[in-house]
């Protein structure tokens, strides 16, 4: 009996040991360029272990812009009625991936009845279907392989390395046999480009789910997003000048967001 107790104790100890060994954390910093944030260079931070990761924006450190080049010399390029709802993504958006529970939790904002609400969307981890190619290139000193995918209205190219053996990546992107070092869409409206990596890394932040707002399914969130256009239309109609009477306005939302369709 005593032995057995001891045995149990031993198991627990090993388990803890294994667990703590698995907790080797890493940090990767991505220069992030998003259409929705006016193409400013942002600093996205990913802290990860084997079984979970947390991606967030380092709000007060917009990436050093000295090497920024506006390449487009061909005249006007952006044309829009500029809408910005609430705060910038940078201030609140976080993505937590739990591989054990196989779920992705993201802190989002949605617009309902003229008010902005905070929420935490839940979706499964198996949302990416990757196509790995045999193209390779070097990023830093890492040998990386190209993979492609289509996700919520954008076509992405990702470069991952098996030299960092964790299936993580910036934002919601993950599921490749190695860390994603670069990922961008074919319109360059979403770009995450690795700028530095540290393993191991002692983070002051814990890799844990963001605790903002009620949890809603991604489907429900998508529903609110699609209602957004209708809300805008109503507000626009109300503010038209005298003499203007519009029977029908449709706002086709070619979203600047990372996710354009659900």
């Amino acid at each position, binding site marked *: 009996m005593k032995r057995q107790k001891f045995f149990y104790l031993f198991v627990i100890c090993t388990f803890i040991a*294994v667990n703590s*060994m*698995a907790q*080797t954390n*890493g940090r990767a910093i991505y220069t992030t360029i998003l*259409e929705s944030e006016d193409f400013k260079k942002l600093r996205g931070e990913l802290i990860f272990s*084997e*079984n979970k990761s947390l991606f967030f924006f380092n709000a007060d450190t917009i990436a050093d*812009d*000295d090497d920024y*080049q506006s*390449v487009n*010399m061909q005249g*006007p*390029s*952006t*044309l*829009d009625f*500029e*809408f910005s709802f609430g*705060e*910038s993504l940078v201030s609140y958006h976080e993505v937590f991936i739990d591989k*054990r529970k196989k779920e992705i939790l993201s802190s989002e904002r949605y617009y309902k*009845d003229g008010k902005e609400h905070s929420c935490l969307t839940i979706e499964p981890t198996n949302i990416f279907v990757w196509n*790995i190619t045999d193209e*390779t290139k070097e990023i*830093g000193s*890492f040998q990386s392989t190209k993979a492609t995918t289509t996700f919520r209205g954008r076509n992405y190219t990702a470069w991952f390395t*098996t030299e*960092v053996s964790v*299936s993580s990546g910036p934002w919601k992107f993950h599921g490749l*046999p190695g860390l994603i*070092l*670069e990922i*961008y869409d074919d319109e*360059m*409206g979403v770009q995450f480009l690795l*700028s*530095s*990596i*540290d*393993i*191991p890394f002692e983070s002051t932040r814990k890799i844990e789910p963001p605790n903002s707002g009620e949890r809603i399914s991604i489907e429900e969130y998508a529903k609110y997003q699609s209602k957004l*256009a209708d809300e805008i239309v*109503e*507000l626009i109609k*109300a*503010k*038209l*000048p*005298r003499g*203007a*009477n*519009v*029977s029908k*306005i*449709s*706002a086709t939302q*070619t979203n*600047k967001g990372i996710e354009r369709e659900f």
Partner: protein
Amino acid sequence: MVKFYVRICSFFIFITCLFSASLSYGQVELKGSVSDTLGNPIPHALVLVQKDSSNKIISYTQSDTEGNFTLKIRSTGILIMVVNAMSYKSKEYTFKVAKEISSPLIQDVVLESEPIIIKEINVQANQPISLRGDTISFNAEDFMVGDETVVEEFLKNLPGVEVDEEGVIRFTGKEIEKVMIDDSDLFGKGYSLITKNLDARIIDKVEVLQKYSESPRLKGLEDSDKVALNLTLKEDVVKPIFGNTMVGVNTSNNYEARVVLMSLNKRLKQYSFLNLNKLGYDPIGNISHFLYSDNEQEKRGVIEKDVKPLINLGEETPVLDDRRSRFNHSGMASYNVIYKPSKKFELKVLSFAMFNEDDFEREGVYKYELENISIEDTEDYNLVNNVKNGFARIEALYEPAINAELKYGGYLTKTNGNGRADYIFNSTRANQYITNDKWETSHNLNYTLRLTDNNALLVMGGYQYDTLYEQFRESPFFPTELFINQEQVSDAIQENQTSLHSLDLQAKLINRLSNNFIIETKAGNIFYSNKLDTDLLLNRNDSSLSYRNVNFINSKKFRGINTFFGIKGRREFTKITISAATDFHNVLYATRDADEDVEGKESIQLIEPQLGLKWNINTKNEIQSSYFFNATSTSIMDAMDNYAFVGDRTFMKGFGRFDIFRGHTFLLNYTYGNWIDRLLFNAVALYSNRNEHLATQAHITPGYNLIGKKLGENQDLLQLNLTTDLYLRSVKNNVKVQTNYFATSSSGSEINNKKTSLKSVYSKYSIELRSVFDFLFNYSIGSSWIHHQQLFNSNIRNSYTDQIQFLDLYFDFSRKIKTKIVLERYYFGQSEDDNTYYYLDGFLSYHIKPDKWQIKFEFRNMLNNNQFRKYVLTDVGMESTLHKTVPRYFLVTLYYRI
């Protein structure tokens, strides 16, 4: 129970295995577990299979929490399995897969632990940044009310867009730079030619280009807050030649006809416009907008460059809309072309010719109430004014290299005016005739060179020549008492001739020190030569002799050189943008009378500082403020020593010299929300102060008025605008509340030798309610109160309130049939009688064949109001004027798209 579940589960697993086995014939299953050297499972280890030959990853998976993995391989031949896990040494296994194998391969993996250290900093990813993206694009069709015909009327429907009476378009309060058609810009600031003539129905999309950069060469170097509009045309309209035409006739035999023809292709784009109307429509807008384009308009010096007429006949337009109050006959023909034979060269030609005949009729009672005199004049005034105008502008753009451009812009315009007024003044019949001729030409050459990514050089040179001749005749000539022994004078002729030459050269260097910090330095020189001659001839009716009086002749010359140097810096922080600029000016000038030979040279040095701050507190709150200490110069007319006759028994002169006045201006703008928020609030405050200004020195008698200028001590201006928009979702109504306050005060004026301080206050309060129902019916209702107040030496002299109320009702029976009823009430304050006027209009539009034929019926002024009386305050008294309005008519207009 648990056992039962296990059984069920294993049964299903069995079935699944069978099923997948049968499906995956030719596939190999690779199974195993990953553990450490102690035998503990390693979860989330990456297991991948590569082809030996190419290293291509053909399959991969991760181990589960127990360290187990299963992989399916479709490939055959020599394969490599690689197992990686964080903090462990990677392991590789080579194995061969033959076609026949269908039983699972089993490979258990034991990984040795190995601390992992990766320190990679500054991995430089080189991905070009290309900008693209439109957020929410608005379909033109969605904003069509149905009764708009030209683009301008349609743009008024767009949220955030305002179009004023002259056709100037503003987007969220900011004046737009240009309106392009399918990305090509022909008219520059003269876009009203398009917006006032082009059929709205051929527009597919309206795009608002924010942060619009004029020159691609300066992209990223300019502080571009500019806004431009781009109209894309419907695809089906872009035929070899397309356009639109309309003709409308009303029951008073007045008409409007319009033809627009266009032909657009890559090399050659042609636009022609024709308009003829007697319905109060101005097809061109303000001609000055056509004169310059782009950066030619940049302010280059402190000396006033305008040549302005001295005499204006009484053509003031009343407060009502042009369609209600204008009696005109106008015509315009315009041909415009952009020719782009190669990527490097572009030529634009704009031209138009127009005529305009306007009839003004009014009956006025004018009271001048000064301390010791009280004058009351009556006038029955009838003026026919004719203007003919020809205009041509050429722009050529040559781009020898990607980083350089050479641009020429020049115009030539001739305006010929002809007016005749017949009037009865205090029961005496009188006539006024005016003719004027104005020539203007200007030539500008700009060279822009982007030296490096962070530097650009601009060199600009220009020449301008303006000349204006005016002849004015009044008979009988009333103020004879001013001239000794000239009681017999029957009529007087005033002749004025002004001309201006100016030549300028300027260079500007823009440096970007870092992405957020831009410095601009400029230096330049402007030469001016200005001349003014005025002459008054008095004719006696008993002889053919004419008389002159030396006190009523002017001959002035002005020459000046303005040398300047300026530096401007702009630094952008995350939420704050600060800009600061200083211009140094040296003005060397001489004024002289024609008979003087000696030119006395004088010079003035000044510094014009400027400071700006923009603070985006958060997405909802924004503050913008700026401060200027700027300079304005007097014009050559202000230098006149002697009087010139300007009609209506009034003589004007200047103060005999040239001067520059300094003033402080402070501007503050606060915005809460934007126009798609439920609550939008905007406050603008402007304050300006000058310690010197040109004050009036007036001598007013029953027979004549002498108005001179003198230096006044102080001049203040305060303007406040507050706008609130609140959308009430539950009742689907939007409330808009607006307050405008405008006050000016100045001291130093003299009226009949008495020092006078003047203060005038204008304030307007308005409230508007607008429904957004989804059904047939909608309304919009509003009221505004306009309060005027005039104070002389702090005593309230006059104070009155005008009111305007409106009610618009919309009934949209279908997409094809739409109706609108408009009721307006005007009340012009401070009168003895009931001074209230109602106007009622009805509109019906019917799309016979959408996008092809449309017919519109308008029943205007149903209550048949033919006149209204308006009270206006002037510096020295009050005028009560009876204006005519267009009587009731019924109009049928037919629109056809070619």
